[in-house]
C-alpha cells in the first residue's frame, strides 16, 4: 500500500455505531465502536509462559466449590519455602502465578484463599469492573459507593459485579480519554503528592496523558492494605513510594497483616508493587509508561492502535521494545533475562537467610525463650520479610528497577542475618 491509499482508509478512524454512556458496562457494546481494541482485549485469555512471567495453563477437574477447569501453575509448589514464609496466612494455602485480565474475577472468586478466610467486598476494587456498581451503590457518588461495598462481606458484594476490568474502568465513554476510576488510587496518589508538597492533587484533572498511560495500571498494580474495620482500601504512600518509606508507614501505623505461625512475629504481606518499583527505575525516569511496553502501538491497516492484549512484553518484543531499542529480539530478551537472573539469585539468597532466621526463632521459641528475648529477632524478621516479599511479589523479577530490586534484597539478607545474631550469645561475652 502506498501512503495515498492509506489516506482513504484512514479518513475517520472509528465509526460510532452505538452511543456509550457512563453506565455502559459491557465491553461487548463498546466493542461495536472499537472492534480492534475489543478483539485484542479478549485475547488476554491466552496463557503463554516466559522464563519468569506469563503463565502456564494447568488443567484441573472442576468442582462445585471451584468450577475452573484451567488454572495457572501454583507458585507454592514451585517453591516450598513460600509456605514457611507465609505460615499462618491464607497465602500459604493457595498462591498462583497471575495470568491475563480475562481471568481476574474468576481467579479471585475461586482461590482457596477465599475458603480459609472471610474476605471483604474491598477485594473487588481490583478484580472486577466496579465503576458502575460503585456509582450505583453511592447514588452517583463514587467514593460513597466504594465505602459501602468495602464493608460488605465478599460473598455478598460479589453479586454486584459482572465483568473483569472493562473499557469503562479506564476510559471516559464520551471522549474515550483515559480516566482514573479507582478510589484507592485517587486517594493514594493524592497522599503521595501531598508528601511532595503538592496539595489537593486531583489525578483526573491534573495528570498528563503520558502519566495516565501509567496511572490506569497503578489503579491496581500496587501494594495495599485494608484500613480499620471499614476495610477501606488504602495505598500506603504518604511517606513516599520506596520500600523504606512504605515499611516506615506500616511501622507508624503499627499495622500487621498476620502473626507468623512459626515465630509469633507480627508480619506484613507485600503485594504486586509494580507501580512502586517501576517508579524507582530508569524507564520511569525516562517517561516510559506501562502502556508503552504492555500495550504498545500496533499497526492495523492505516491505523496504529494500542494493543489491548495486555501481557508480558517478552511475548511482543518487536512492538514493545524495538521502537526505542535497536537491538535484535534475541538480544533484548537476553538483556532482560540477565537482569532477572541476577535478581533471582539474590532473591534466593535472601529467601534462604530468612528461612534460617525463621527456623532459629522457632527453635528458640520451642526452647522456651521469653518474648522479650525474641522481640529483637522478630522485629528483624518483620523487616527482612517485607523487603524480600516486596520483590518476590513484584512481578517483573526486578526488570522494572534492576539495581533497586537487588538493593532491597541485599538489605533483606542483612536483616535476616542480624536477626539470627540477636538470638545468639555475642562473641564479646565469651571467656
Amino acid at each position, binding site marked *: 500500500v502506498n501512503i495515498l491509499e*492509506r489516506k482513504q482508509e*484512514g479518513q475517520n478512524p472509528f465509526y460510532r455505531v452505538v452511543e456509550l454512556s457512563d453506565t455502559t458496562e459491557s465491553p461487548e457494546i463498546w466493542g461495536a465502536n472499537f472492534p480492534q481494541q475489543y478483539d485484542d482485549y479478549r485475547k488476554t485469555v491466552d496463557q503463554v509462559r516466559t522464563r519468569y512471567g506469563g503463565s502456564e495453563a494447568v488443567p484441573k477437574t472442576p468442582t462445585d466449590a471451584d468450577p475452573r477447569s484451567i488454572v495457572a501453575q501454583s507458585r507454592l509448589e514451585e517453591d516450598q519455602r513460600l509456605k514457611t514464609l507465609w505460615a499462618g496466612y491464607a497465602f500459604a494455602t493457595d498462591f498462583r502465578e497471575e495470568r491475563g485480565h480475562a481471568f481476574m474475577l474468576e481467579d479471585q472468586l475461586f482461590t482457596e484463599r477465599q475458603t480459609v478466610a472471610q474476605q471483604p467486598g474491598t477485594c473487588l476494587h481490583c478484580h472486577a469492573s466496579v465503576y458502575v456498581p460503585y456509582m450505583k451503590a453511592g447514588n452517583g457518588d463514587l467514593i460513597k459507593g466504594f465505602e459501602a461495598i468495602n464493608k460488605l462481606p465478599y460473598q455478598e458484594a460479589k453479586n454486584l459485579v459482572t465483568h473483569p476490568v472493562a473499557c469503562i474502568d479506564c476510559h471516559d465513554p464520551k471522549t474515550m480519554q483515559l480516566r482514573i476510576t479507582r478510589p484507592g488510587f485517587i486517594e493514594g496518589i493524592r497522599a503521595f503528592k501531598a508528601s511532595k508538597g503538592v496539595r489537593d492533587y486531583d489525578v483526573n484533572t491534573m495528570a498528563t*496523558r503520558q502519566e495516565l498511560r501509567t496511572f490506569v495500571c497503578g489503579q491496581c498494580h500496587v501494594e495495599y492494605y485494608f484500613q480499620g474495620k471499614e476495610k477501606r482500601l488504602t495505598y500506603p504512600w504518604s511517606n513516599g513510594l520506596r520500600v523504606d518509606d512504605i515499611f516506615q508507614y506500616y511501622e507508624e501505623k503499627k499495622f500487621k497483616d498476620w502473626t507468623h505461625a512459626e515465630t509469633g512475629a507480627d508480619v506484613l504481606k507485600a503485594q504486586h508493587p509494580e507501580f512502586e518499583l517501576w517508579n524507582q527505575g530508569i524507564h520511569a525516569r525516562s*517517561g516510559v509508561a506501562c502502556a*508503552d511496553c504492555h500495550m504498545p*502501538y500496533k499497526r492495523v491497516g492505516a*491505523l496504529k492502535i494500542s494493543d489491548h492484549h495486555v501481557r508480558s512484553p517478552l511475548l511482543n518484543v518487536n512492538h514493545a521494545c524495538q521502537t*526505542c531499542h*535497536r537491538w535484535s529480539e534475541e538480544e533484548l530478551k537476553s538483556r532482560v533475562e540477565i537482569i532477572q537472573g541476577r535478581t533471582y539469585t539474590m532473591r534466593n539468597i535472601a529467601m534462604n537467610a530468612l528461612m534460617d532466621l525463621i527456623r532459629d526463632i522457632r527453635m528458640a521459641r520451642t526452647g522456651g525463650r521469653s518474648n522479650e528475648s525474641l522481640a529483637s529477632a522478630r522485629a528483624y524478621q518483620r523487616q527482612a520479610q517485607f523487603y524480600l516479599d516486596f520483590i518476590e511479589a513484584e512481578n517483573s523479577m526486578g526488570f522494572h528497577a534492576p539495581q533497586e530490586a537487588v538493593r532491597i534484597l541485599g538489605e533483606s539478607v542483612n536483616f535476616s542475618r542480624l536477626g539470627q545474631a540477636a538470638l545468639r550469645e555475642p562473641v564479646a561475652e565469651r571467656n
Partner: protein
Amino acid sequence: MTPGQQRTLISAVLGTAIGASLGVGAYTFVYAKGGSYLTDNPAACANCHVMNDHYSAWLKSSHRSVAVCNDCHTPSGFIAKYATKASNGFWHSYAFTTGDFPDPLRIKPHNLDIANNACQKCHAEMTASMGIHGGSVSCVSCHQFVGHME
C-alpha cells in the same frame, strides 16, 4: 515556469532579501551556499561540514526516500517555512562562522516541536486514533531514529 523553477526564483529573491535584511555576512551567505538553505535539496544542508553527520545519518534512515530535511525541519505553510529557514539560516550561519555552538548539536525545543508537528504532515491518518484522547505525546520519544539512523 515549472513549480521547480518558480521555487528556485522565489528562493533566489527571498534568499538575497533575507540574507541582507538579517545581515548575514553576504560573503558567508554566498560562500556557504546560503541560498541552499532555501532549496529542499538535503545535500545543500551538508554544505556545512557540521551537518555532514546528520546528512549521512539521514541517508541511512527509513525516511531518506520519503522525506528531506525540510519536510521535518520547517513548518508547513509558505511564510512559516521560509521564516524558519531564514532564522535557522541566519543563526546557523552565524554560529557556524563564530564557531560558537554546542557539540554534539542539540535540537532546540522550538525546532523539536517543528519536527514533531512535521510528522503529522504525513502521518495524520495513521495517528488519528492516537489523537482522539487529547493530550499530546511526542512522536520522537519513541521514533527517535526515523530521520537519523544512529
